[in-house]
């Protein structure tokens, strides 16, 4: 990963296969880009809705229907949302005024008297928002649980007598809350079963940790076994694991890119990728979310103009994307990204945090989902925190890359090695997905997840909610928009024994507040049906069925493009 683009061997030398049916020569690409422009054109024809259809008639880039929709916010709702924020802001100023003149007690951190003449610390919008909007509905977040976060969980009940400034535990437990919030895609968050048993066994044998780095005395045979298994699972030459997914990104990107390099980053990339890119000291340019025209434009500009001022060519261009975006539920347009990357000789860093295990017929992430060759992705990153029910992250790719990282990455050199029971959980769950444990449980779970996802999304659409993202993505954002509805939705759902995650401002644009459901293979049909009927009930109560594209409930119709053609008008 140290040579410049000019001296980089063509991809064909290393990976002979080009599976996505797109020849890496000019013609093929121009055709594909043409297709992109057609699609762009389509957007203009239908300003109502942004939809991506790529199926057989769009050529060979996608082997299956790729349907992604982001229905536009209805105008009235947007206006009312801004009005709601306006009213809350006025009251926020009122409360701040009262606090400032000591008419009211201030419960939150503020400048001390002696710091009065210094630069204000708590005056920016984020602080104002936390103090005056977030605090009022804080009971919807950070709810303590007291069981495994599986398909159902137990919550500790808490109450607040001062409008969420402090909480106290009532001592009661809310039992059997259906969990629609955990990233437990394959249902491996269990405290019984083979994974838990083998982890317990390993704990007895190895203890819980060795308190040393991998490079010193912390290297165990389990670690090496896990890395081999990860490499085999992903179909690449080599892999290495780290104790924390966030650090995997934020510490390895600086090892891969540096001064004189360019990082092209999707605008919705996770904080860890953003941090890593910033720490690397490279120049960062941001392209629009999943927008291949924007990416191509940046790539062209980068190659034409080179580095700022000196106009030397970039040492390296690294494209950083995620598999599934956890706030939008969208899937990266990987075939197009790979085509662009090959055409412009850039490198690709793919973060599969949410997609590994959750996508693809064999549960091997987006690469498997699109049926591409893992060799086409230069750096595959992922976490064990989600689908595998463990903790940590991995980087996988060519042998030279991993060897380079082993000696140069900060988190490989300085971080303590992973705890053996966690490693064992990863090994057992991964073997289960691969079917190496001699059962079909893993395959069955992958299939179940896909089925649950399609079912849940379809039903929500039929009910008239606006949901974002790709049809196959198990992360399902449902739009709430108005600030009061964020709080009301979380509370009403919990009242009906369903735990959901609601997301508001800093994580999303200010008017696009949403609830995010994460579907798991562990959810049974019964649970999903109960959840859906409750969501529908609460949706009626709060008037959340914003969608203007009503779909008639139909169980028989296969879920494909036709559904959209019917409702295009």
């Amino acid at each position, binding site marked *: 990963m140290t040579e410049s683009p000019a001296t980089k061997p063509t991809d064909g030398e290393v990976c002979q296969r080009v599976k996505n049916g797109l020849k890496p020569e000019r013609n093929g690409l121009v055709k594909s880009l043409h297709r992109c422009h057609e699609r762009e054109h389509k957007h203009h024809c239908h300003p109502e809705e942004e939809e991506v259809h790529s199926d057989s008639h769009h050529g060979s880039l996608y082997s299956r229907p790729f349907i992604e929709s982001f229905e536009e916010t209805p105008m009235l709702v947007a206006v*009312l949302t801004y*009005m*709601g*924020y306006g*009213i*809350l802001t006025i*009251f926020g100023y*009122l409360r701040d005024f009262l606090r400032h003149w000591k008419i009211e007690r201030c419960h939150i951190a503020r400048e001390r008297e002696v710091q009065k003449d210094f630069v204000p610390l708590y005056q920016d919008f984020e602080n104002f928002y936390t103090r005056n*909007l977030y605090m*009022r*509905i804080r009971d919807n977040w950070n709810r303590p649980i007291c069981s495994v976060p599986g398909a159902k969980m137990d919550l500790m009940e808490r109450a607040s007598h001062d*409008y969420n400034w402090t909480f106290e535990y009532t001592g009661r437990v809310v039992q059997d809350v259906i969990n629609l919030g955990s990233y437990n895609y394959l249902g491996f968050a269990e405290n019984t079963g083979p994974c838990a048993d083998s982890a317990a066994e390993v704990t007895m044998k190895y203890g819980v940790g060795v308190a040393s780095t991998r490079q010193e005395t912390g290297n165990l045979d389990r670690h090496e076994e896990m890395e081999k298994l990860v490499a085999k699972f992903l179909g690449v030459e080599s892999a290495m694991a780290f104790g924390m997914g966030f650090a995997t990104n934020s510490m390895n990107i600086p090892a891969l890119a540096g001064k004189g390099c360019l990082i092209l980053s999707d605008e919705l990339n996770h904080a860890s990728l953003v941090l890593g890119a910033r720490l690397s000291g490279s120049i960062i340019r941001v392209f629009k979310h999943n927008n291949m025209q924007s990416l191509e434009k940046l790539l062209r500009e980068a190659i034409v103009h080179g580095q700022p001022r000196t106009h030397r060519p970039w040492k390296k261009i690294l494209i950083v994307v995620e598999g599934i975006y956890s706030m939008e539920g969208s899937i990266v347009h990987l075939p197009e990204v790979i085509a662009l990357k090959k055409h412009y000789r850039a490198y690709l860093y793919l973060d599969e945090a949410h997609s590994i295990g959750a996508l693809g017929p064999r549960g091997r992430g987006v690469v498997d989902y699109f049926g591409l060759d893992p060799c086409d992705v230069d750096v595959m990153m992922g976490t064990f925190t989600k689908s595998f029910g463990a903790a940590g992250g991995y980087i996988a790719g060519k042998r030279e890359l991993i060897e380079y990282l082993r000696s140069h990455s900060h988190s490989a050199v300085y971080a303590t090695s992973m705890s053996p029971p966690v490693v064992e959980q990863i090994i057992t769950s991964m073997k289960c997905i691969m079917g190496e444990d001699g059962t079909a449980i893993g395959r069955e779970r992958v299939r179940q997840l896909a089925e649950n996802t399609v079912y849940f999304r379809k039903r929500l659409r039929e009910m008239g909610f606006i949901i974002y993202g790709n049809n196959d993505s198990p992360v399902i954002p449902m739009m709430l928009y*108005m*600030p*009061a*509805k964020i*709080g*009301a939705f979380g509370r009403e759902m919990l009242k009906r024994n369903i735990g959901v995650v609601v997301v508001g401002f800093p994580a999303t644009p200010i008017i696009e507040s949403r609830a995010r459901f994460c579907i798991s293979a562990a959810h049974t049909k019964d649970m999903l049906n109960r959840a859906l009927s409750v969501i529908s009930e609460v949706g*009626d*109560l*709060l*008037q959340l069925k914003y969608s203007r594209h009503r779909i008639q409930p139909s169980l028989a119709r296969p879920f494909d493009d036709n559904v959209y053609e019917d409702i295009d008008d």
Partner: protein
Amino acid sequence: MNFKNLKEYLAWLYYQYLLITGIYVLEPWEKSIFNSILFSAIAMVIYTSYVFVPIHVRLALEFFSGIFGDHSSFS
């Protein structure tokens, strides 16, 4: 939505009002401030329109009929 009686319907309407204006999340005293300001504003609008609109309408009618009257007399 199905409602058993008018009271339930009104309660639902009030709930929608709370949600849309965002005052659902406010503390009760803030809610009452908002409600009293809003309702007094509405009351004033209604009162002023009750008092002044008829006068203005009459004045406007007189004005226009004057113009029309003039025009018709000249032509």
